[in-house]
């Protein structure tokens, strides 16, 4: 065979094999990310905000500025309606059909847990899921997003018992993975201070009336009542306690609950309520990153009001951008993970400097707030959860 022919064959072989050896989801011009999330069902609002108005918002800004190392980011989303079997099917479709590079910002403990094993087996990074259960800990390809619930609980209990010297606690919690995870965490953290929960009442998701539960909690006379609910029932709980005139307890909302939606629904019943805030106020904060977020929202989705869910998606995308940028032009799943693990003191302009280490936990922060005149007033600096 002639030399020319051999060279031609070698070239053809290289071209044919080349793409097959390249990283899935990364081409010359684009990076493909995606997730299965709730666009219908009980958590449709948060799902849509975190993805289309959060992650996509940041990537729009980034792509307009040229992308990451010359590549633009494209996202693919599928609806799972909070059903784990749909999440499994969607995630498999994303990995096997859409050939995504990584999963970014899926939502919910059960839907995420259902996909964990598959993603680890197939070495697909699961980045910054919008959920706080510790099941994501210790997985090589997972980086947590939200401050995990056990850390949130630790910050809340240590602050309330240590600094505010409270001794009796009750919990009103949603009857699902989110509520029960916090209940367990509170029990553990109070036990460290030799305290017990005085009363705990579950609230079924979507129920319309919490008068019985509030009455029972009141009968236990707690100094502090934790609320681990979604904004609707959370606001109902506050209105109910206002109705019965139960003033001698401090209502404290968990991290995911402490947001402007809940305030808006509760109206004046929220006055004096406290909570752990995971984010600065997306509407009024002067932090440079939050202002940039608002400007971007105004530019691309002016009808959409800034909120914490889209803010969390925005930060998730920002973190990805930082990791991918550091990984450089040879972007593979391994280089991304390595780059993320080496993030130290990253300033998002929104949260305190983020340092991700081998524990793959990106967020460990929270600060205390109290509602005054219809807005959250910051009472402490960023609390420590280590």
């Amino acid at each position, binding site marked *: 065979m002639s030399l020319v022919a051999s060279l031609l064959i070698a070239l053809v072989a290289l071209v044919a094999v080349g793409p097959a050896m390249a990283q899935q989801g990364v081409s010359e011009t684009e990076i493909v990310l995606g997730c299965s999330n709730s666009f219908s069902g009980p958590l449709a609002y948060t799902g849509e905000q975190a993805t289309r108005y959060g992650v996509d918002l940041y990537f729009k800004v980034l792509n307009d500025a040229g992308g990451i190392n010359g590549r633009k980011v494209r996202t*693919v989303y*599928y609806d799972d309606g909070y059903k784990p*079997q749909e999440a499994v*099917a969607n995630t498999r479709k994303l990995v096997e059909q859409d050939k995504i590079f990584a999963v970014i910002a899926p939502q919910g*403990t059960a839907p995420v847990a259902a996909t964990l094993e598959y993603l680890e087996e197939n070495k697909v990074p699961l980045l910054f899921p919008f959920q706080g259960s510790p099941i994501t800990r210790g997985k090589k390809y997972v980086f947590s997003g939200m401050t995990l619930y056990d850390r949130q609980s630790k910050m809340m209990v240590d602050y309330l018992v240590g600094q505010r010297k409270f001794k009796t606690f009750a919990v009103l919690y949603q009857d699902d*993975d989110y509520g*029960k995870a916090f209940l367990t965490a509170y029990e553990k953290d109070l036990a460290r201070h030799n305290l017990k929960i005085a009363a705990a009442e579950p609230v079924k998701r979507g129920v319309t009336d919490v008068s019985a539960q509030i009455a029972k909690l009141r009968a236990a006379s707690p100094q502090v009542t934790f609320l681990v609910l979604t904004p609707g029932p959370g606001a109902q709980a506050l209105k109910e306690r206002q109705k019965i005139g139960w003033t001698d307890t401090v209502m404290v909302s968990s991290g995911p609950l402490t947001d402007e939606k809940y305030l808006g629904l509760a109206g004046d019943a929220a006055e004096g309520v406290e909570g752990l805030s995971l984010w600065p106020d997306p509407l009024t904060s002067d932090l440079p990153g939050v202002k940039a977020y608002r400007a971007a929202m105004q530019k691309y989705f002016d009808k959409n009001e800034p909120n914490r869910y889209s803010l969390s998606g925005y930060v998730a995308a920002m973190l990805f951008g930082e990791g991918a940028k550091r990984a450089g032009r040879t972007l593979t799943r391994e280089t991304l993970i390595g780059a993320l693990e080496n993030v130290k003191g990253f300033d998002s302009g929104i949260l305190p400097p983020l340092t991700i280490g081998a524990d793959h936990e990106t967020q460990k922060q929270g600060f205390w707030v109290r509602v005054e005149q219809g807005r959250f007033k910051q009472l402490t600096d960023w609390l420590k959860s280590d």
Partner: protein
Amino acid sequence: MSLRRVWPLVALAALAVWPWVAPRYFVFLASLVLVNVVVAIGLNLLSGYTNQLSFGHAGFLAVGAYVAALTTIHAPAVPVVVTLLIAGAFTAAVGLAFGVPCLRLGGLYLSMATLAFGFVITEAILNLDTLTKGADGLRVPAARLGGWPLSSDTTRYYLTAVVAVLLVAAAVNLVRTRPGRAFLALRESEIAAQASGIPVALYKTAAFGVSAFYTGVAGGLFAFVVGFLSPDAFDVFLSVDFVVMIIVGGLGSVPGSIIGAAVVTVLYDWLAAFQNYRPLIFGTILIACMLFMPGGIVRALEPLSRRT
């Protein structure tokens, strides 16, 4: 050879070679379709022949799924076929326990009772959390067939396909047997059947039990194919999905169950990219389907099959 004879052979051949020609995701999707086919047949055995529409079959699916999962977790030596039988039998027992007192109820009343059943089951799963891991969800280990774990899409697909084919064949042949003819008589007129000496109450109970058995086995398959269970998976909307499948396919018909399950599952999957438009599109298709094909797809295709 008439078309009617050829169809099943073609279908079986396609089923057998599917994993070799289809991409991995579509093998997984096919497994889901087959699981839904078994549920649809089970539901149709109840609803198509005894005119009782169940809005609680997600509850039966859940029972079968959790029983299969827990058996595999706590007694891994049990071969998967036995596990599925256990799941089916347990679910049948639950179905009978539930069905017996509700025998006298007709139509709407039974539907309401099944709706209630579905809710009670999901509550029970949520609250028996030491056993079921409740809201956190239960990871299902791989099924084992003679010592080998069925841990690939292809092996799971073949398990599902074989079980589904067997159950479909059983359902088709049911009609040829005496009990089967009794069921058909029940469908035409309960009163006439009673007058002909058919013990209606017994057959209605049996329908419940068989329907629950089918759905329980499907639940076991579901557990192995999906790999993760949680109470959120089995809500009333899933029960409604199954009802949609049999009515769109054709009430009281085995081919209807198969077609309905396949069409609805594939359509639903294909529409996933439409995110929050999906319910809109799906709902429109449902309405169009019922307006232009009343009686379901099978009835609409009847003129075709007559020519063969």
